[in-house]
């Protein structure tokens, strides 16, 4: 067990060392980690009166080290330093400190410094998550008997890595290339139709790109971690099949929304209900708590005002969905509302609306105010309206076809299970993806052919 701890720690430190060769560049990150460990120990020692001050220091340090735009730049550290993974380390540290303070904490009272570092710096989850809880991590990393690693676990892990590799290095790459190319050619589009089509591509392709990129990365780290006998939590579950924006966020970046649900939404709800105990108010308090939670999701993602607005849109999306659910249940009754949810036409439109709202919010994620303003000026209100109608109709239809196609494919059975999940089909599929991925990487990392004279 001890050697596994040190191997993981060495791997994580080695991974971090790729990002700077100056030891001084790691000092702020090390200080933050040390502060987190001391806070954890203080909470475990029962110094709960220090909880709020420690929490405030942790949050302020995070904001300062991440250089949020609302802080005067003169206050920032001027030397360059490594802040890679700080956003995820922040969540892990807060999780430990908050849980350690809880009266019936299930956290081990003796979290060693090495275990703490392994949990917070685990190289497989450092850059972009998933946000694993400590007990889940410790149950495998510190277990006397590690998770078995045989052909039945290694093969699916390898398959996950291949699928992830394909998503990141082929799908997301080509989608980004398409988006960049459309952004470059938008102003040159001669007709209104071409402009709208180009703008639709720019806006509508981004959610798919970010999904392939992020979920592909998660696939890779889940696969890699499994070879280290660690099972990481899932972070995506077919988010574009969601019929509303609340469900979407329970299937997209699952560990983040789950973390925020535990540490922001639930405490906020609890406090609000204690303050205003009326049951009639509860649904509206719920809506308010959802708004605040998702506003924080946006703020956490970036340092500028665009990300605050991104958070506002996320908050509006989830709170409007909740309000709609409450009002519909009131107006037409829970049974009729549930029946409506089973209608395929309603679901088709709901999926399209969810996708469109997601694409709208992400505008403030990949773009900035200046770029968006010039895009809006260039298109004008009529073309913008056409753009969103096209995205809504296009995504509704595409996702409906996708769902139908998926169901049809899953209907084929082999050895009492969907043929698609048989080891033979999966072997073929993984091989195809691997060949395409390798070919793409080779293609993109070699210069184009020189002028050739094969025929004249």
């Amino acid at each position, binding site marked *: 067990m001890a050697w596994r701890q040190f191997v993981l720690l060495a791997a994580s430190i080695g991974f971090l060392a790729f990002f700077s060769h100056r030891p001084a560049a790691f000092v702020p990150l090390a200080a933050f980690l040390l502060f987190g460990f001391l806070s954890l120990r203080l909470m475990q020692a029962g110094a709960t009166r220090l909880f709020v001050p420690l929490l405030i220091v942790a949050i302020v340090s995070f904001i300062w080290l991440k250089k949020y735009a609302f802080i005067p730049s003169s206050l920032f550290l001027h030397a360059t330093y490594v802040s890679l993974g700080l956003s995820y380390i922040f969540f892990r540290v807060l999780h430990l400190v908050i849980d350690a303070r809880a009266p019936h904490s299930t956290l081990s009272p003796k979290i060693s410094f090495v275990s703490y570092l392994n949990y917070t710096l685990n190289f497989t989850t450092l850059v972009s998550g998933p946000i694993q809880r400590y007990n889940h991590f410790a149950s495998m990393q510190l277990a006397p008997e590690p998770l078995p690693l045989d052909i039945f676990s290694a093969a699916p892990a390898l398959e996950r890595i291949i699928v992830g590799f394909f998503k990141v290095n082929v799908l997301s790459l080509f989608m980004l290339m398409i988006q960049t*190319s459309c952004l470059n050619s938008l102003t040159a589009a001669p007709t209104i139709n071409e402009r709208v089509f180009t703008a639709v591509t720019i806006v509508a392709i981004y959610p798919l790109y970010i999904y392939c990129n992020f979920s592909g990365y998660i696939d890779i780290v889940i696969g890699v971690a499994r070879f280290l006998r660690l099972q990481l939590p899932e972070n995506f579950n077919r988010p574009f099949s969601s019929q509303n924006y609340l469900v979407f966020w329970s299937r997209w970046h699952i560990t983040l929304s789950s973390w925020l649900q535990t540490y922001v939404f*639930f405490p906020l709800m609890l406090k609000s209900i204690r303050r205003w105990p009326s049951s009639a108010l509860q649904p509206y308090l719920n809506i308010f708590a959802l708004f605040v939670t998702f506003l924080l999701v946006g703020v956490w993602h970036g340092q500028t005002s665009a990300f605050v607005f991104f958070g506002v849109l996320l908050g509006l999306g989830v709170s409007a969905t909740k309000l709609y659910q409450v009002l519909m249940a009131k107006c037409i009754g829970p049974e009729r509302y549930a029946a409506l949810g089973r209608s395929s036409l309603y679901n088709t439109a709901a999926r399209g609306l969810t996708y469109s709202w997601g694409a709208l919010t992400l505008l403030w994620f990949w773009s900035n105010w200046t770029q968006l303003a010039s895009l809006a000026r260039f298109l004008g209100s009529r073309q913008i309206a056409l753009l969103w109608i096209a995205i809504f109709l296009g995504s509704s239809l595409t996702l409906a076809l996708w769902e139908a196609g998926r169901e049809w494919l899953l209907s084929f059975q082999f050895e009492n299970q969907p043929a698609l999940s048989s080891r033979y089909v999966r*072997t073929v599929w993984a091989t195809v993806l691997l*060949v395409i991925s390798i070919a793409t990487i080779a293609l993109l990392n070699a210069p184009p052919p020189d002028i050739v004279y094969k025929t004249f």
Partner: protein
Amino acid sequence: MVTTSASGRVIERLERAIAELSLPKTARLSKRDLLLLPLLSLLTVLVLLGVSEAVTRLLWPTEYSQACIVPDPLEGYRFKPNCSARGKIAEGSWITYHYNECGYRSEGSCGAKPPGTIRIAILGSSMSQALHVSYDDAFFSRAAASLTRFCARRIDVQNLGVPGSSPAYADRHVQEALALNPDVVLYLVVPYDLNQQVLPKGLADPAAPVLAASSAPMQPAASTLNRLEHLVIQSRTLLVAQHFVFENTETYIRAYLMYGDKADYLRQPFTPAWQRRFADLDLTIGDIADRLHHAGVPLVILAVPSRAEAALLSSSQPPAHVDPFAFGRAIQAIASRHGAGYVDLMGPISRIPNAENLFYPVDGHVTPEGHKVIAQALAQKLQDGSVPAFSHCAPPQSAERRP
């Protein structure tokens, strides 16, 4: 408690669902599967490559016709007189190449210049020969048609261009061009030309090593690995994949700039190797110009950019230390030193959005659209009064205003 939250349950359910999708833990991989699964994987690779190659060969046919090529012990090869051949590259359409009685890609006879005709002799490599472009779409045909209209005289083009030929080759054929009694000699220079032997033997320092021509016929593959590499390079699937990938400007530029020396003509300052190439070209063009001036024939030089250069020319933000105008400026300076005319193609191309579309993405030669741009620039230059034979021709803008 935290760990029993609703979200925690969601994750547990999700993990269970995913575990169900995986192979059951009690399953045993049979001996048959231990053999079958790797074989299936291998078979998949073979089928995938085979099917993609078959489909791409069907949809993107090519034909390399050697019918008009005659091996030449001195020059490598030349074209058979009075010969026609059809060829096609995957990215282009079917093209008929016709060579006149002198083996030039010209429709007119290479015999005595008919009275009242203005004759242009063209020297250079594949760009001069208009490789992969039909005769009517070629820059020289378009320019000739335009000049015939404005000059009210027939323009005869004798194209001595040979694909893959070097500046040294052009120098060796000056006398042949002069024998045609031309009114002007046009020499096209492409960055690739300078990767070959720039300096003719007569001008070269006998002690200096001679640069090997990149167009030298491919040697038979020496080993299995070489044969495999050759097979991959010749793969139509690879070509089609490259075609689509390199349609994206950013990707193409990034990939092209991976070249070291080959792409150094784009980087500033020029490396010593490129400075030497330009110095050699300066001597070669000087020699060509001297011989032409002696015969009273003006020389006009046209620098044609590479696809990457064109992409960078029309790009608003070229990468640091990259100057897409540098090659053109260097050629213009050489032309000016030797009293030759210079056709500025860099300026017009820089004003065309996505100018890389004027070239075949993988093959790298100019498309018919690109030839149109070259033709316009050439016609404009020849009508500016610097070439006596065309001095009487009205410039295009005034001609357009005619009733």
